[in-house]
């Protein structure tokens, strides 16, 4: 059996599911409304592409994980879960995990990317100083930088989506899947930053390791990469984060998430879970009531 047999139909079914779910369309419209509100109050849109990216960065650190969680937690729960049947088809666990991820990621890119593209088009019509297509030196605004901003935003979404899918397959019920996905949301939005801050204040983390530590947290990696590769190109600010570590961090979270999603279907994982349950039951029985 080919390692990715069945990938195409599975990815297509996931994408079709996203397209047919009206709630996701409303989510995209809601994002556009939030962007308009943020940009009206922040005034970034008058300044051009880079000021707009700066204005949208903080809201997106919260909104992208919300969209990713909304898409990811139902991937393997309730009526969407037909893994028991799919196991009788020539579809590997890897095909299933990657196919579901790919279909839902395209949906996420459309939900988040479409309002951002609309914002970009509005900037091209009304936005601030004259822009060059290629930002060849610092201090130049450019639509290319905004495209880079959109790409980094969807990359951040991919990492959170994969983490949410992994969390949802580790539990058995739809309610538990939602709880696990919300836990991912909290960890992504606040956990990494809090952990780094705690490490710094406790003296566990040295200052020169700050950029590396932040790169391992998904939202800090995203924020740092935007500051380095979008804002930093147009300004003289840099050094917000260790770029290779941040890229490796986002890619790593995505790969680990997918590996867990694929691995949970394996027999070895099932047996491991049974052994853990046996030990837990025995321990519970041994404890005095």
């Amino acid at each position, binding site marked *: 059996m080919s390692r990715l047999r*069945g990938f195409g139909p599975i990815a297509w*079914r996931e994408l079709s599911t996203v397209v047919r779910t009206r709630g996701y369309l409303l989510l995209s419209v809601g994002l556009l409304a939030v962007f308009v509100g943020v940009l009206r109050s922040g005034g970034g849109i008058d300044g051009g592409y880079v000021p707009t990216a700066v204005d949208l960065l903080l809201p997106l650190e919260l909104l992208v994980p919300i969209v990713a969680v909304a898409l990811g937690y139902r991937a393997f729960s309730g009526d969407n879960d037909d893994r028991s049947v799919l196991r*009788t088809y020539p579809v590997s666990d890897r095909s299933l995990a990657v196919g579901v991820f790919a279909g839902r990621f395209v949906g996420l890119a459309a939900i988040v990317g479409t309002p951002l593209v609309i914002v970009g088009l509005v900037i091209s019509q009304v936005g601030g100083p004259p822009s060059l297509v290629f930002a060849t030196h610092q201090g130049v605004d450019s639509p290319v930088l905004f495209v880079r901003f959109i790409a980094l935003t969807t990359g951040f979404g991919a990492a959170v989506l994969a983490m949410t899918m992994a969390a949802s397959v580790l539990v058995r019920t739809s309610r538990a899947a939602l709880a696990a996905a919300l836990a991912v949301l909290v960890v992504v939005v606040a956990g990494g930053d809090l952990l780094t801050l705690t490490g710094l204040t406790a003296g566990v983390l040295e200052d020169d390791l700050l950029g590396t530590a932040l790169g391992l947290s998904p939202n800090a990696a995203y924020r740092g990469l935007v500051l380095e590769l979008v804002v930093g190109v147009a300004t003289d600010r840099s050094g917000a984060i260790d770029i290779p570590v941040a890229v490796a961090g986002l890619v790593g979270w995505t790969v680990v998430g997918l590996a867990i999603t694929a691995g949970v279907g394996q027999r070895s994982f*099932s047996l491991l879970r*049974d052994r853990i349950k046996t030990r837990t039951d025995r321990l519970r029985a041994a404890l005095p009531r």
Partner: protein
Amino acid sequence: MTDAPILRLDAISKSFGTVEALSDVSASIPSGSVVAVVGPNGSGKTTLIRILVGDLAETSGSVAYEGPEADRPIGYLPQNPTFRPGFTAAETLSFYSSLVDGSEPEPLLKRVGLAAAADRNVEALSGGMRQLLGIAQATVGDPPLVVLDEPASGLDPNMSANVFQTAAEMAGAGTTVLLSSHDLTLVEETADSVIVLARGTVAASGTVEELRATFDVDSLRGVLNAVVEDTGQVAVVGGNP
């Protein structure tokens, strides 16, 4: 029916934590026959079926498929089939077909009497119609062995009889059908052989006639009552999967 087994179960045991749901279950499923697994609630029927279709890993023992090579050796109808909301019955079967032979969904829907509901969304199907769609799904790709976990659940008596008739026809055409059911009358009429499970073990097995003779009773219900010593209570031996 041939004597050659299509599936061999050897000393299967399954524990959920400290609860043993199946203990040392061995059986062989002959090709081209209808084999029924019966037993009271909690006897381990669904756990056994999930293990033999590969949905659950056995704690010990082994399952060996010995049938002809096929893209999809075993078709499966779970006890509670789920279908992706927003898709029609035909689209649902087309998706599953695209994973194997890419065949059209119409003949599969026609076989289970759902041709008229081909364009209806799955969430608009009644419980019985969903069950029939699940049976159609189990036959996608013409698997040599079709496993149906309580296929008559939620169906009216006529439709239940129709499902068992379909199972018998499939066996006549060379497909092996293994099913679990609480409808002992239909099992008696249709099954070539019966495996009786009680408290996670094989309490008896054989043809209906052999079982009746062994327990000196005149019905499969009598066999079941003799085997499990009906207490009117649910035998709780399984756990959460």
